């Protein structure tokens, strides 16, 4: 070991720890593959996910060589719909998590740094929002506001920031009293400067881990919404909606519900593996 080399920074330490986790790397691979598949969808399948095929001939075809995952009641190829559907699920999940994390970080940092009345009020609101089950809150909003894909994204983000806010607040509270923050304040740095230049960068690891772990949950929530018919409107393929459509033909055409569900599961597993490994890499606990 080269004793003269400067100590590894936070990021490279975390990265080398991450690399040792086989599950974490597997998760990362899964996600990369999924995103590539979503981007290169037209290259992967010759079928159109939306256009209806020759319905009487092509409907409810069981998995075979031409259609590895079968066809649905409109004669559309299931595999094609799953691949194109990944675009919707991945985009929505990514954007929603981004919104949730940004909101949560701002609120949490403000609460943690300002303390006092501001903290108390913000945290009471967080508690109140957490008390309403997320799906109920989402359902209520969907009922009140007209539906569209962007609405789903915004609502998912707007209902998911609370946990991040709590995490960020806890982190900020523990960092606040460190010497370098006090030094910055002593030198005259104002409140927002301290938040932006010192506190937030150092809570970034916590935020990233939390965000990755949340994407899985958001994908599931979005799937549930689509399943209930309240998500992205058809005919855009969405995995949750495909499972719903398959429900009526469950006895005869089991493949319609099974494969989209597997797609959802694999995606969420990938994000959870990645998130867990990131968590272990960047926040090593003393005991396993």
């Amino acid at each position, binding site marked *: 070991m080269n004793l003269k080399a400067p100590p590894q920074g936070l990021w490279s330490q975390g990265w080398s720890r991450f690399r040792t986790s086989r599950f974490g790397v597997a998760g990362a691979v899964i996600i990369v593959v999924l995103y590539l598949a979503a981007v290169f969808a037209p290259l992967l399948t010759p079928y159109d996910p939306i256009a209806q095929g020759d319905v009487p001939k092509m409907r409810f075809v069981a998995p075979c060589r031409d259609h590895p995952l079968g066809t649905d009641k409109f004669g559309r190829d299931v595999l094609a719909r799953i691949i194109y559907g990944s675009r919707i699920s991945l985009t929505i999940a990514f954007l929603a998590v981004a919104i949730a994390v940004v909101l949560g970080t701002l609120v949490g940092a403000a609460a943690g740094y300002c303390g006092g009345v501001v903290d108390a009020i913000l945290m*009471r*609101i967080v*508690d*109140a*929002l*957490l*008390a*309403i*089950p*997320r*799906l*109920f*809150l989402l*359902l*209520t*909003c*969907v*009922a*009140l*506001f*007209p539906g569209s894909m962007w609405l789903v994204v915004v609502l998912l983000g707007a209902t998911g920031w609370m946990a991040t806010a709590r995490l960020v607040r806890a982190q900020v509270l523990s960092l606040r009293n460190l010497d370098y923050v006090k030094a910055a304040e002593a030198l005259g740095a104002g409140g927002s400067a301290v938040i932006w230049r010192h506190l937030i960068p150092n809570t970034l690891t916590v935020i990233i881990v939390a965000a990755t772990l949340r994407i*899985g949950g958001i994908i*599931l929530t979005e*799937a*549930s919404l689509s*399943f*209930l*018919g*309240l998500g992205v409107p058809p005919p855009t393929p969405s995995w*949750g909606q495909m*499972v*719903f459509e*398959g*429900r009526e033909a*469950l*006895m005869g055409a*089991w493949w319609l*519900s*099974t494969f*989209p*569900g597997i797609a*959802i*599961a694999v995606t*969420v*597993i990938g994000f*959870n*593996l990645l998130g867990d490994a990131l968590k272990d890499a960047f926040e090593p606990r003393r*005991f*396993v």
Partner: protein
Amino acid sequence: MSRFLARRLAQSLVLLFIVLTITFFLLHLAPGDPMSRYDDPDISPETARHIKESLGLDRPLAEQYFRWMGSFARGDFGTSLRYQRSVRGLLAEAIPNTLRLTVAALALHILLGLSIGVLSAAKKYSLFDRVNTIAALFVYSIPSFWLGLMLILVFSLKLGVLPSSHMQSIDTEGFSAAALFLDRARHLVLPAFVLGIASAASTARYMRGSMLDVLREDYIRTARAKGLTETRVLLKHALRNAALPVVTIIGLSLPFLFGGAVVVETIFSWPGMGRLAVDAIYARDYPVVLAINFVVAVIVILGSLLADVAYGLLDPRITVAGGKRN
């Protein structure tokens, strides 16, 4: 203890107040005139007028707010647009059914979660432990509606051993009490399993972690040195201390339980609040939707209050010190 209780109770009331306020503003922030929502051609003009009057929709916003809060606090939730009945009546029918489901799921969650967690900690890194870790990851990641459908496919459609919907069979005339109970229990199995298994998986993980932390403590070492059997050490000493943080986790899982009930009830045609909510959404039945939101929030807040009280009873340290230790 009573001071602690009083404080938590006051906090809960404040929370409820905030929830009500948020719900009120959601309704009025929505685009469109709230009054026009009740101009649905399907409602008779009588009912529409009655609703508008009782809701005071023609009054200024502040006055509406207080009247609305007052009526909700009294338990008057208005009239359902779809069923033309009092919302309260609808809820009174649906809530017990949902409670049956959630209590069963909660029981499964606690029993399975705690026992697997304890065993995993006791046999750390064994095959049992590893298998459970992987199984937990899977359970955590699959959508509950999909799990429900797959189980229905296997157990109801292909194997025919468990019923796929509703709380009891249609032809239960003349069933003895025992047979009725059994029939209902059979109908409860799949929904409760689907609802509770994900929480059970996450609780098992937490329990395992908590047990491992506790097993390192000195008093465990002392107990072992005294010659107590490992089982006794685990169950009598470690478990009690490890269970404490898990109690809070269980309290925190209540929102997820009710949220999950929405999907599970829809799949299994279970006549509870979740399905009522979804139907109300489809029918744009706002009074029902808002009332359900409120009731669920109340139940959840009450539940976490109970969890905190239980925690306080189990661990006197936090009540005496007058605050949560962390």
